[in-house]
């Protein structure tokens, strides 16, 4: 190899030196959500004296915890350029299942199968993992697009929930779940700690493990991942199971947090979780973003929801505003993708 094109690529150097403009452009998906968060926080802090208090910060943290736990798994899925629409339904059915296997008070009129606490928890976890495996099977083996597969799973999980509670409400869950969902230690709610730990774990897995790298690579260019000899189906299947298990954990703690288990209890969490991930800047096209983005997204939504309660605003308008913020985030998400694609060409 006496020669080679030894002249360094001039545009590569230019791009490297190419300064702040191009850095900003390529980092747009990280910067925009962060600016949104700062802006919203500042806005509500000025608009309402009760917003920027320590108590309220605690409120916000607690309010985003269940969404946060569910969003950990969803972040994996979206990083792979897939989607999971069954997260809320799986959260719901897992929460109901753990109550179903716990002895309820006599006035609760459901076909209750009491078990020791740890068994109830394990069975509930097995259920959500199983539903995740079904999602994975449909997506990777049969080849059903995740959008459709998880839509079907949403119905299936809702159906199982309905069969288990039959329109009733259950209240009791194993003591461990009760503690983690509604207890607190040194003034910090356990559910916030669990959410923080799960987000941390998700971040560590995505950043420091081989599996995490594969998730990014599969999301970045699935074809290339396959031609690099990665088992793409196994990776896609795994993220679907991770998503279902995170949803299940969120569901169990959520039930304890709300104090009851019933049908359709988690419906709003589907949109909230997707919004958290996407608003945070994780690319809908896969391969870009991560748990850090999801955390910012969670806070944007949390501050928005909480802040709107602190200012005097029509509650119907509130829904519209949330929709508009989500739309803006989607526009930025798609736009950031295009900017990056252009930068790479």
């Amino acid at each position, binding site marked *: 190899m006496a020669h080679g094109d030894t002249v360094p690529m001039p545009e590569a150097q230019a791009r490297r030196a190419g300064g702040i403009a191009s850095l900003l452009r390529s980092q747009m998906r990280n910067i925009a959500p962060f600016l949104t968060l700062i802006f919203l926080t500042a806005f509500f802090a000025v608009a309402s004296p009760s917003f920027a208090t320590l108590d309220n910060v605690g409120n916000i943290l607690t309010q985003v915890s269940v969404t946060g736990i569910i969003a950990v798994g969803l972040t994996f899925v979206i990083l792979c350029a897939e989607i999971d629409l069954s997260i809320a339904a799986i959260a719901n059915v897992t929460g109901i299942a753990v109550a179903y296997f716990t002895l309820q008070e006599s006035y609760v009129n459901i076909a209750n199968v009491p078990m020791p606490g740890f068994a109830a928890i394990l069975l509930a976890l097995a259920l959500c993992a199983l539903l995740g495996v079904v999602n994975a099977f449909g997506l990777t083996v049969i080849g059903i697009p995740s959008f459709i597969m998880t839509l079907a799973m949403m119905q299936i999980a809702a159906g199982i929930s309905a069969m288990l509670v039959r329109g009733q409400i259950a209240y009791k869950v194993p003591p461990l779940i009760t503690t983690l969902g509604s207890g607190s230690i040194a003034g910090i709610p356990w559910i916030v700690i669990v959410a923080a730990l799960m987000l941390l774990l998700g971040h560590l897995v995505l950043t420091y493990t081989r599996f995490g790298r594969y998730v990014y690579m599969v999301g970045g260019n699935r074809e290339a991942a396959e031609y690099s*000899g990665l088992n793409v189906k196994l990776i896609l299947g795994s993220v679907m199971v991770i998503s279902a298990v995170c949803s299940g954990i969120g569901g169990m703690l959520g039930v304890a947090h709300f104090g009851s288990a019933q049908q359709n209890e988690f419906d709003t969490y589907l949109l909230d979780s997707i919004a958290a991930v996407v608003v945070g800047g994780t690319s809908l096209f896969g391969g870009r973003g991560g748990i850090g983005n999801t955390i910012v997204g969670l806070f944007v939504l949390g501050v928005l929801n909480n802040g709107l309660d602190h200012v005097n605003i029509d509650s119907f308008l509130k829904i519209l505003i949330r929709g508009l913020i989500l739309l803006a985030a989607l526009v930025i998400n798609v736009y950031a993708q295009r900017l990056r694609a252009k930068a*790479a060409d």
Partner: protein
Amino acid sequence: MSDSRPPLLELQDITKSFGGVTALRGVDFTLRPGEIHGLVGENGAGKSTLMKIIAGVHTGFSGRFLLDGREVHFNSARDARAAGIAMVHQELSVAPDLTVAENVFLGNQPTNALGIVQWRRMAREAAEQLKRLGIDADPMSRLGDLPIGLQQLIEIARVLFSGARIIILDEPTSALSPPEVERLFAALRKLREQGTGIIFISHFIEDILLISDEVTVFRNGRKIMETRAADTSKAALIEAMIGKGRDALEDSYTHDITLPAPPTDKPVVVEADRLSLARNLKQVSFSVYAGEVLGIYGFMGCGQLELARILFGKLAPDAGQLRVSGEPNRFKSTADARRAGIAFVPESRRDMLFLQEPVYKNVSISILDRINAVLLKPARERALAERQVEQLQIRPADVEIDLGLLSGGNQQKVALAKWLSHPPRLLVLCEPTRGMDVGAKSDVIQIVRQLRDKGIAVIVMSTEPETVLSLADRVIVLKRGEVVREFAGETISKDRLLEAA
């Protein structure tokens, strides 16, 4: 067919450049009514460019363009269609999400007085037209669900029955089976009787000689020869195409190369035993030995792409067996193939590279499991990548920059580098030097030779004879999914290779 009739189409002194590349230089071309005009030339000779000018795709060129003796200026492909010119492009240009019937009538669906599409009529007429080409496809099925060859036929059907007076077919037969080619030819002859002018481009010289009245040869953007098909031969056309002895640049490739005897004393690394796949491969068998480069040559659509994907576990054969070191192996995924020691570089770099990721992540992706089962070791990754970057002279020598910022030749080297940190047993390379400058090409040749000398088995697949000739120790020729010739331990040259294909 009489030459006294005024030409349908006359091009005079056409020159066309793309940036710095001159694709056509002062080309004259004439098409008469009721004439099938064959066009041959090597890849890049400018055939498609001339056809795209005729079809109104390229509008910026110099020279005169006469239709029925009058000068015309097309501003778009639509203008050309309105003037009665229809073209089947080399690259499939069907609408995969529409139905077969919609594709057949693309752009001129039958409508009633209110402008509403008459579905039933469209389906019926589509089925009739397809039957004339011997195609038996449900007009209401989604086109994208059909095999590529069938899609190609349906696109041909659309053009043939569009009522155009000038029909251009740019390499339409590469994905077709012999009976399909025959039916196509029958349809072309019928159109010829009706006075349609047809331009037919193909790499299959026999087909050209069989169907054409007139044959034109292109080389390097120039028209080299025009002759009546009856007055020429395959050998004469091939010689005109590659310019034997005349073109200094091509000269080296027309020399005879003597291939070494196959290393039958070495172990067989991979053995293909009667591999078959749908329309693409028929009972393909071959062995590749440790420490040899096996070249697989054939025209586009000969089944190379599919064969390569079977070797790497991306496609499963319908029949036949793949044996790795003597043991039958059915790969369920590309990961299985990789673990069995097979490495693959597809023909399109973008398909195997992560352009938005840094170079080192591209280099390490296939060996992460050998570095550590669970955790990433970025320092090890960078060190490995740096060693490859240095050995392969990848420029710029920076493993942190995004791969998309490297030049094409350097990206191609990265595609190779990812398999070299842990050398495979079999390396399958598709079009390893396509689009590279001379320096990068000879680098790649060096790398492949070094790997071979280390005892790795290499398969090089290409549609360019030069690539195969410059790399291979032994060559097999694929034609329409079948192995038609093996060159081993004998002399070989470009024209003999082309002859065989």
